Each structure stands twice: as structure tokens, then as C-alpha cells.
């Protein structure tokens, strides 16, 4: 142990040989040659991997670029799909329309979660009294999961106004939102039902053995676990709903897709569609990333450790 000049000079009365004490309380760990060698090897391997990835990305990009640019129809395609002038004209209109899509997502998303949960719970009810409810819920999910969304939309958005019923709205936004809610509730109900069934029977047994009724067991023990487990697939369905709000444009509601449509109809240039498409992608990316993050976090909490 080497003493600094200050320490060798002494600290006066009560001064402790701090250097020595501190040294003893610390773990005097010195990495072994083996570890240093291993880490050096790992670093060099990581550097090589980065280099390979960069090179491979560059080659792929160049090949794709050459293939597209050298396609016989590229000059025409570039003109009709990637025109900067039309893009600038379309963007504000498309964004204005997108506000409708966002509002639809929020309202339909909330309605879908509530309705989906009710249907899923209806399917788990026991007892003869609930038979009609159970059968209805099963028929509902079977029907709306099988019915193509576009047909559902056309029937609701175009068919309902044709009935000319008093007091029933003909607003394409409201009707389109209804159609989306009908279809997505069926999907989400199945997600919730899978979650309910994934809760181990021993949890139910524990709850019932404490004297909780069937309903209390569902409310306090089964549903909280089921919902937590199903967050990733639920977010997945919401991402899907977000992009499908674009389909309400078939009824004439001016959303992002319809806004692009109007410009295309006037100019016969398809650039606005590309703009609308990119705007939807940009909107869903945060949600998709959020879904991935939630899923990864849950997986990490469930299984600790391991490198493969």
C-alpha cells in the first residue's frame, strides 16, 4: 500500500488511516486474464457483426433502387405516384381528414372494449337462465368474425339509410363507426374470452374456497388477470382498427382516404393516395412500438434470465 504524502504527514488526533480501511471494505476484485480475453473477443465479434450488417444493408438498398429505377414503367410511375407538387397539395387536406380517423378510433376503440368485454363475459355465464344470452353472444361472434368488414360497412352505411326509418341517422360517420364497432367487438370478445380461459382453474378454486360467489370470482380474480394477459393482442386489434377507420370513406365521410380520393378524382394523379397511406403508417407506428414494448416488458417479467 502506498501512502500519499498527505497521509504520511498524519491527520492529527482522531485521524483514521482512511486509505487502508476503505481498501479493506471494498471487494478487491481484479478481472482475470480469462475474462479480459473473453471480453476482447466479444468486442471484436460485435464490431465484425456491425460491419457485416452495414454492408448487407447497403447492398440490398442499392439493388432495390436499381431494380425499381430501371423498371420500364418507372418514369410514368414516378410521375403519377410520387409527384412532389401533388403531395404538397394533398398533405394538409389528408391531415384534416385524418382527424376524423383519430376521433373514430377513440370512440370506436372505447365502445369495442366495453362491448367485447360484455360479450366475452356473457359467453362464460353458467346456468340455464343465461342460455339465450350465451347463445346470442356465440352467434354474434361467429357471424361478425366471418363477415368481411367491407360488406358489413356497405350494408350498414348504405343499407340502413335505404330503409328510411324515422329517427335513425343517415350520417355515414355514425353508421360507419357502428359497423366498425360491430366487427371489432367480435374480435375483441374472442381476445377477452381467450384471456378468461387462460386463467388457471386453481385460481377459481382458491377464490370459491374463500366463499366468493361465481360473479365475485370473475370480477376480482379472473378478469383482472385475463385483461392484463391480453393487453398485447388487444393493442394489436386497436392498431388494426385504427387503419380500418379509413374504410368509412366508402359512405362518403371525408376522412384521410376520402380527402385523397377527392384530389385524385380532380387531378388523375395518384400521389395523394401514397400520402394518405404514409400518414396512416406514421399514425400506427407509435402504437405498434408501444405494443411491442408492453409485450417485451411482460415477457421479461414472466421469465428472468437466459441468453438464448
Amino acid at each position, binding site marked *: 500500500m502506498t501512502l500519499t504524502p498527505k497521509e504520511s504527514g498524519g491527520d492529527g488526533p482522531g485521524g483514521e488511516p482512511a486509505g487502508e480501511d476503505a481498501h479493506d471494505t471494498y471487494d478487491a476484485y481484479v478481472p482475470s486474464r480469462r475474462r479480459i480475453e473473453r471480453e476482447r473477443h466479444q468486442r471484436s465479434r460485435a464490431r465484425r457483426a456491425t460491419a457485416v450488417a452495414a454492408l448487407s444493408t447497403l447492398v440490398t438498398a442499392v439493388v432495390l433502387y436499381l431494380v425499381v429505377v430501371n423498371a420500364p414503367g418507372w418514369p410514368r410511375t414516378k410521375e403519377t405516384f410520387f409527384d412532389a407538387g401533388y403531395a404538397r397539395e394533398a398533405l394538409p387536406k389528408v391531415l384534416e381528414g385524418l382527424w376524423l380517423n383519430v376521433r373514430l378510433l377513440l370512440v370506436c376503440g372505447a365502445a369495442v372494449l366495453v362491448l367485447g368485454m360484455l360479450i366475452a363475459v356473457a359467453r362464460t355465464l353458467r346456468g340455464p337462465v343465461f342460455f339465450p344470452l350465451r347463445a346470442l353472444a356465440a352467434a354474434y361472434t361467429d357471424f361478425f368474425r366471418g363477415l368481411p368488414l367491407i360488406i358489413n360497412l356497405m350494408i350498414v352505411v348504405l343499407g340502413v339509410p335505404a330503409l328510411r326509418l324515422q329517427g335513425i341517422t343517415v350520417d355515414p360517420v355514425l353508421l360507419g363507426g357502428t359497423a366498425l364497432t360491430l366487427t371489432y367487438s367480435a374480435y375483441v370478445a374472442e381476445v377477452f374470452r381467450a384471456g378468461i380461459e387462460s386463467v388457471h382453474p386453481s385460481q377459481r378454486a*382458491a*377464490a370459491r*374456497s374463500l*366463499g*366468493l360467489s361465481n360473479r*365475485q370470482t370473475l370480477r376480482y*380474480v379472473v378478469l383482472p*388477470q385475463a385483461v392484463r394477459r391480453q393487453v398485447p393482442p388487444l393493442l394489436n386489434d386497436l392498431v388494426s382498427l385504427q387503419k380500418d377507420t379509413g374504410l368509412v370513406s366508402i359512405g362518403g365521410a371525408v376522412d384521410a382516404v376520402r380527402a385523397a380520393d377527392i384530389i385524385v378524382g380532380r387531378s388523375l394523379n395518384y400521389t395523394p393516395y401514397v400520402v394518405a397511406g404514409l400518414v396512416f403508417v406514421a399514425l400506427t407506428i407509435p402504437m405498434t412500438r408501444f405494443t411491442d414494448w408492453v409485450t417485451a416488458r411482460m415477457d421479461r417479467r414472466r421469465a428472468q434470465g437466459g441468453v438464448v
Partner: protein
Amino acid sequence: MSGPVGTDSSVPVLRMEAVRKTFGGSVVLRDVDLEVAPHTVTALIGASGSGKSTLLRCANLLEEIDDGAIWLDGEEITDPRVDQDAVRRRIGVVFQSYNLFPHMTVLENITLAPRRVHGADPAEARARARELLDRLGLGAKADEYPDRLSGGQQQRAAIVRALAVRPRLLLLDEVTAALDPELVGEVLGVVRDLKDEGMTMVLATHEMGFARDVADQVCFLDGGVVLERGTAEEVFGEPRQERTRRFLRRIVEAGRL
């Protein structure tokens, strides 16, 4: 005798008569009779699949019996007109795999039934839960989630959860079977304390030394039949049945007695 009689010491807390239970084609319980007197401990022993766990599940109405009858404090609980939830409120169960609710803290696990089933005041329920946790040495774990606890701690928390509703009868289903050997002692210690406090218990167990120590009555189950019953000294000391002798011999050979 009919109707609930409360704590009359002459009435068994639990009585089973000619109970029969089948799963599919196989008979799991065959004409089982059982009487559990107040403040006594009954140990159910026997090989895996002999019907111990099923017997406990039937006693708590988690399984519906095919034939026979079961009484709790003199009231027939297998009567179809009986409120099953009300019956289960009076019986505590501790499971082999703890079955704590993973989305609730230990304290929430324990106060759930007192609050939601028995209508207890939340503050009072929490105070009683903390008192019980302290007594079982888990005071510091009240606000943890179950997955942060060791197996022995989880099982003790499960015992507190079962006790929090002041049950008349406690059923323990192989409560140490899922524990590492060094954690078995802490759980068995709790069961021993409960016996000293006069808790009526029925336990299915593979811990023969413990059964011999703590049980007032031992029942040896074999193929769904109570083949032999008596005091611990009788069943372990001088078993009358050849099957019992063979079972105990195997246990001794495995070093478990």
C-alpha cells in the same frame, strides 16, 4: 340431529357418510365415512391417487359428490338447497401450490374475502391481516406481490388468507409438497401452532413424522377407501392391514418416517 349447532363439542365439525365420488369411469372415493371432532386434527395419509385431495375438495363442495352425505356442524351441506357459497365461507382451504392471486399484494390477497364476502370494514380487515402476518413472521411482506416471496413464505401467506375469515374448519391439501426441504419446517411449525390454538383441521400429507406428531386421528386411504383409521399410535405403531404395513414400510425405506 339437524340444523347448525355451533360449537357444541359433542357434534362433529365435519361428518361424511358413505361418500362416493367418480371421475368418468373411475371411482375415486368409495363409501368414505369420516368424523372430525372439534379442536382435533385429522391426517389423511396414503399414496398419490388414493383420494386424499378429492376427499378435501368434496368436503369444501369444490367437487360434487355422487352419493352419500356431508355435514358441517350438524348441517347437511350436500343438500342441494343449501347455499354453497355460505358453506365455503365457514371452511378455510390451503392448497398444495398456494394459489395466491398473483395480481394482488399479500395484504390484498388476505383482505379480499373479509371485505367482499364478509363485509368487513377495509381498515379493520387490513389491521387483522397485518396482525396475522406478524404472527406468522410475514409482517414485512404485506405489500409485496406473491412472486417476490419464497415458497414457504407464499404458503404461510396462503394460510393467513384462509384464517382471515375465521373458519370453523381448515383443510390443508399437501401444503408442504411443493416446498424445498429446508422450507417445510416453517410451514409445519405454523400448523402445529394452529393445533395448539384449538383449530379444527383435516390435512392430507406425505409428512408421516409430522402426521404422527400432530394428528389426533389418522386415516389411511387406499384406492378411495379408508382402509385403516385410529390414533397416530395405532395406525403407525401397529397397523392391522397388510396394505398399511406395506405403505409404511415403503415410507420408512424412503427415509420419510
